[in-house]
């Protein structure tokens, strides 16, 4: 574990905890953005430049804005003083279960046993070619899904014309 990794990991985990525990929703969102940025830093640590910068572009640049807008448009940002009424144990147990499943899956996978990762430099070009050849079906399915979601959003947001109903 190197020092940069320790710093970035600490930042990521710390901001994730802050995102869960802060009272003010916008503060939570901003901490979450820091978590995204920390994740991008981790990707960069692993020499995955493309993924890291895409993470910043998509999550820090766009998804965070979406979250913030959703918070502003749906509820008051004023922090409330009363404590959370739901007992946290259900949530904690679900989280622990999810984490255990993931951890067991990772441990069971052969990734840890491999001594060195394949050294081939994955360029953006190869990524793109793979995406347009081997993985073109998932890509198209995703595109269709996103288009459907966008159409749905447009229909929900569309104002009914006078006397149309």
């Amino acid at each position: 574990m190197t020092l940069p990794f320790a710093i970035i990991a600490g930042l990521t985990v710390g901001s994730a905890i802050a995102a869960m525990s802060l009272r003010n929703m916008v503060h939570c969102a901003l901490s979450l953005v820091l978590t995204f940025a920390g994740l991008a830093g981790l990707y960069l640590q692993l020499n995955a430049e493309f993924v890291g910068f895409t993470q910043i572009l998509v999550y820090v640049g766009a998804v965070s804005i979406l979250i913030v807008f959703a918070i502003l448009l749906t509820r008051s940002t004023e922090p409330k003083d009363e404590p959370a009424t739901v007992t946290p144990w259900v949530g904690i147990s679900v989280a622990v279960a999810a984490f255990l499943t993931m951890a067991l899956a990772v441990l069971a996978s052969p990734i840890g046993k491999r001594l060195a990762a394949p050294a081939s430099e994955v360029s953006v070009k190869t990524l793109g070619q793979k995406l347009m050849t081997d993985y073109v079906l998932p890509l198209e399915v995703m595109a269709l899904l996103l288009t459907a979601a966008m159409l749905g959003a447009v229909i929900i947001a569309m104002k009914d014309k006078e006397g149309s109903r």
Partner: protein
Amino acid sequence: MAELFAKLDALPVTLKHLLMGLLPGATPEWLVSVVSAVLTITPILAVFPLMFALTTVIERKGLGRIQNRIGPNRVGIPLTDIRLWGFGQFIADGIKSLIKEDVVPRAADKVVHFLAPIALLIPVLLTYSVLPFGKNMVPLDLPQTGLLFFFAVGASTELSVFMAGWSSRNKYSLLGAMRAIAQMVSYEIPLILSSLTVVMMAGTLSLTSIVEHQAGTHFGFLHNWHLFTPWGFVGFCLFLTAAAAEANRTPFDLPEAESEIIAGYFTEYSGFKFAIFFLAEYLGLFAMCGLGITLFLGGWLPPVNIAPFTWVPSWCWFLGKLSALIVLFIWLRGTLPRLRTDQLMGFAWKFLLPMTLINLVVAALWHMSGGAVHIGIRWVVGFAMLAIPYWLLGRGFEASVGKRVYRFAN
């Protein structure tokens, strides 16, 4: 002669090597890299803020002339009668903003309010790290992801704008932030799509390689700038439009429309924090212009490959092109009124986005037909494929905006 100019061209690089050579041999490696980084960053931090400072004066003078005024021409060297045509103005402005009281609203979210200008300036400065300013002069060469880095870092400024607007607890700030974010998110799409044509043609995301891709010559002397192709020309125009919107420049300056919402998202900032917002805005504009130069205007390449032009140092070409684009933006600011929000959004989604998509198709066709088809046919077809949609979409946009009817002026 040419050798001397080549030396002048490499002057910044040579200077850095000289300074690095002054380090004692036993210097640890991490210190060497830190010194190297500092030596690279310092000129950027010196040149571009200075350019910003001069631009503020030139902009005010230029706008004044456009409006048949004189503009600032008083402040020169203090305690003398030397006025320097008013170019001492920016020093006075800087001192003023440094010593002004820093007022933070009582209701403001102090931490976020404090962090917002920093979170805005840092990404803007980071964007400079991938721009090739001259031959062998790129601070951080990312061969795989140069352009992506620029857009990724540039996109994270939106959040700082939101932080500034929300933490001020002021309706004008929040309105300005909302407008700014809506505008930046909308115009980022045409911005990226118009740059994507260049990536398709050059086949790389590295900005240095993109510049080198434009080094070939047309007709023996004209450089192979992307501007000199149908898709490149249209792409450049679309890029500049989207860049103006990203940098909140007139006619897209709704986020800080003085007559409507005071100063937009930085209404509640004073003193040096205000200056930082101002600085970040202009530095963002310069970075956008620098990217436009790199992508379409041949970066640090001279326009023609003939002797006196090739003698001029490459970084001078870059700065010269940058200055020309800044002048263009000042000229546009003096000419155009501000758009309405609905016009702004309509323009992005109904005009710019279709145009960039068509431009992508044209660029692809241009690329495919390279070598096989006569260049004249490629030009005619490419031009027609862009001009006809431009005319149709423009008509549609103008019809949706409608002719302005004045109550008294007609």
